[in-house]
């Protein structure tokens, strides 16, 4: 374990979490976030963690860092297998998380610059003789519903409605897996999709990146083919003659190595 580029001034607790530390290592070592060399990263990450622990970092508060170490080691071991599809999948998942977190950090920095209003003060309401007692009327059964809700284990008979998920999936920081299902859904109605059309639908950079990574993932899985003219076809529709690039399955095409 050599040439780890670690600034000795950095302690584990200056990082907001394992993703933050990974981003730090990636930028310090000028690694490509879109193609993390997992072996290098595992080595540097574990070395950093063990060094921090040697220097007295409390192991109890390091649980999330250790969890990530285990995850990286798992990806590494999966990557050693002759067929390492799973490793690629896990690695890309991690890439997605890192991109998301990187955006989060950038927005946080912008918010921090805008936060001068934290020094503005408002008043407590004036003491004024006014009747503030609640005026509405409710059915008492509502109270029971809310009680069970607060207790958190309300029994349900029906599956949750689709809108219920909006709080989870209505996100502008776009996950790759949601993009994948979106593209798959498009194939229900369309025989083929234009790559450029998919990009046009993207509402933000992160959306675009997620679209791109989702297409990569789908083609790797062998679910789609991409033709010379950049049409995307689901496997069932693909003519053999269309298959000109990115044939799925083989180990070689799994690794998106440096071009």
């Amino acid at each position, binding site marked *: 374990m050599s040439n780890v580029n670690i600034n000795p001034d950095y302690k584990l607790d200056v990082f907001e979490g394992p993703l933050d530390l990974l981003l730090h290592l990636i930028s310090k070592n000028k690694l490509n976030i879109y193609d993390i060399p997992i072996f290098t990263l595992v080595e540097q990450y574990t070395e950093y963690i063990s060094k921090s622990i040697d220097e007295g970092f409390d192991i109890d508060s390091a649980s999330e860092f250790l969890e990530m170490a285990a995850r990286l080691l798992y990806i590494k071991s999966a990557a050693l297998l002759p067929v390492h599809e799973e490793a690629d999948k896990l690695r890309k998942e991690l890439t997605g998380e890192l991109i998301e977190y990187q955006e989060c950090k950038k927005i946080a920095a912008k918010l921090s610059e805008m936060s001068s209003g934290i020094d503005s003060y408002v008043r407590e309401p004036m003491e004024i003789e006014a009747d503030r007692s*609640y005026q509405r009327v409710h059915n008492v059964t509502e*109270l*029971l519903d809310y009680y069970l809700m607060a207790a*958190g284990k309300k029994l349900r008979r029906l599956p949750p409605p689709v809108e219920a998920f909006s709080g989870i999936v209505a996100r502008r920081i776009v996950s790759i897996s949601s993009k994948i299902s979106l593209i798959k859904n498009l194939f229900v109605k369309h025989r083929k999709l234009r790559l450029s059309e998919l990009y046009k639908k993207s509402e933000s950079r992160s959306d675009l990146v997620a679209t791109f990574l989702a297409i990569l993932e789908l083609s790797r899985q062998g679910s789609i083919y991409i033709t010379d003219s950049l049409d995307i076809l689901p496997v069932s529709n693909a003519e053999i003659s269309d298959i000109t690039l990115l044939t799925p399955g083989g180990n070689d095409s799994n690794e998106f190595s440096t071009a």
Partner: protein
Amino acid sequence: MNSAQLKSALEAVLFASGEPIELERLAEAVEADSDITKQALEELAGEYDARNSAIALLNLDGKYQFSTRPDYAEYIKRAMEQKRKAPLSQAAFEVLAIIAYNQPVTKSFIEQVRGVDCSGVIASLLRRELIEEAGRLDLPGRPLIYCTTTNFLRTFCISSLSELPPLPENDEGVRLVSEITAAEQTDIPEQVLLTK
């Protein structure tokens, strides 16, 4: 600090405080001589008067305070009373339900059930006279306990707490809450009160 800056600083301090403040404390806060501060306050008060502001800077026995002029009391009262009609939030309903079924309860109990800080919600329920303080528990820290009010009964159209709908017996959540209750009421009160 020039005279305009001094007046602005005093204006900000008096606005934010709400309470009457002594001349000395104001002078210290703006780091000025107390004579100069007094003069600035008088000028500031004069400016508010001159432009017929709805707000006046009062000198009450050597303490200074901004206050609205009496002519506007009616509007203020109306604005404050409008809030009576605003519906309760989800959080307020939940806290109210927890208090209704387990009263009297401490804030820490409510927060254990809900898993989040509930200070704001409790304050608002108190203001709306749906709950009230019912003394303190004779436990370390002497925590306040809360129970529901007659306005609560009116709101839910019941004449006594015995008319609350019964809790289902096999609900896991209900069981969980009664475990917290048991813990709070019996052997290990310190722990309950310290686990916040």
